């Protein structure tokens, strides 16, 4: 059974999505991440989608769900590396990804997680 690997970095989790995921794989990732957040009491989850040239409503929903579940467990979710074409398409689709913070890359994502949320 194939799974997307989750990297543990202290109290942060990093997921790099590089394959075109079929729905089952995405749901498995959602479950695995939620389990890991709980297991290590993570305070942040970084999802790197710089390798994705498509994000449709299913994946978008998955990301929002992860952020929602993470939030319940007091962890923040940062989405990094979104490609321009994907960003434009998501805006057109009307997918807003509530509860998800964003950063240009993993480094900036980690920097973001070091500052309190909603710092101007």
């Amino acid at each position, binding site marked *: 059974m194939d799974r997307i690997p989750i990297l543990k970095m202290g109290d942060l989790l990093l997921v790099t999505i590089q394959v075109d995921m079929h729905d089952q794989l995405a749901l498995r990732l959602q479950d695995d991440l939620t389990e890991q957040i709980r297991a290590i009491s993570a305070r942040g989850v970084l999802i790197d989608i710089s390798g994705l040239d498509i994000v449709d409503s299913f994946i978008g929903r998955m990301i929002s769900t992860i952020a929602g579940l993470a939030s319940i467990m007091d962890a923040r979710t940062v*989405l*990094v*590396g*979104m*490609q*321009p*074409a994907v*960003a*434009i398409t*998501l*805006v*057109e689709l009307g997918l807003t*990804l509530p509860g998800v913070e*964003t*950063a*240009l*890359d993993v480094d*900036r*994502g980690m920097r973001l997680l070091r500052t309190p949320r909603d710092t101007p």
Partner: protein
Amino acid sequence: MAALQQSTLDAIRAEEAELLASWSANLDALGATRDVRINQQVVQQQTRQFLGLLVAAANTADATDIGAAAFADVRRFLEDLSRSRAQQGFDAQHTASFIFSLKRPLFALVQRLYRSDAEALASQVWAITELLDALGLHTVRTFQKSREDIIARQQEELLELSTPVVKLWDGVLALPMIGTLDSQRTQVVMESLLQRIVETGSETAIIDITGVPTVDTLVAQHLLKTVTAIRLMGADAIISGVRPQIAQTIVHLGLDLQGIVTKANLADALALALKRQGVSFERKS
């Protein structure tokens, strides 16, 4: 130009199946259908379509002038066909031979039809020849023109892509927008801004609209979409050059800028961007 008589057109319609079969056989002989790039069924469908359009056009008062309105559909079909084949790597001659291979089956048909009327036979053979030759010539001409149009369009796109996205500071890009923001051009320009944000890893983009005379709902919506996309990517945008009239328009139109910061001029926007980066300047007295 001689016209196709009603009796000829009726015969074409009546013997359509045999005519198409004969035409397809000619195309086969030319090797036109055996090419792997084209689907046999597609060609047959296209022969049927062309014959139908031709008969419909020739059945009107204007049947002697292929430039007339009656032949618009025929011309359009041929232009599309010629361009389609061009995209697949064929040349103009290919589509021309598509047309010319219809001659022999048509000649055979009128020979049978006007067996006992030499004058009618001659006029119809002449009419067929003139019509198909004119259409073949038209195809070759428009093929040339479409080649030139493609080159012109590519040149224009290259120009658009050389948009003035300026790096003002580490992590701060500026895009001065000039003139009316008509949809097509604006989209291309905004997309290249997003691309540059990723390439340079800049967290702030300043979109300067000083050079934009009016901001209407469409323009505002477009700016809003661009800023939303920028934020999804992990950066942020400041809109500068918002003159009082524009500010009024925005309020008047009831547009919700959703927390996008606007500044009256580029300098103020830059100051804010630098502040966000944690950069400060000191004057040496």
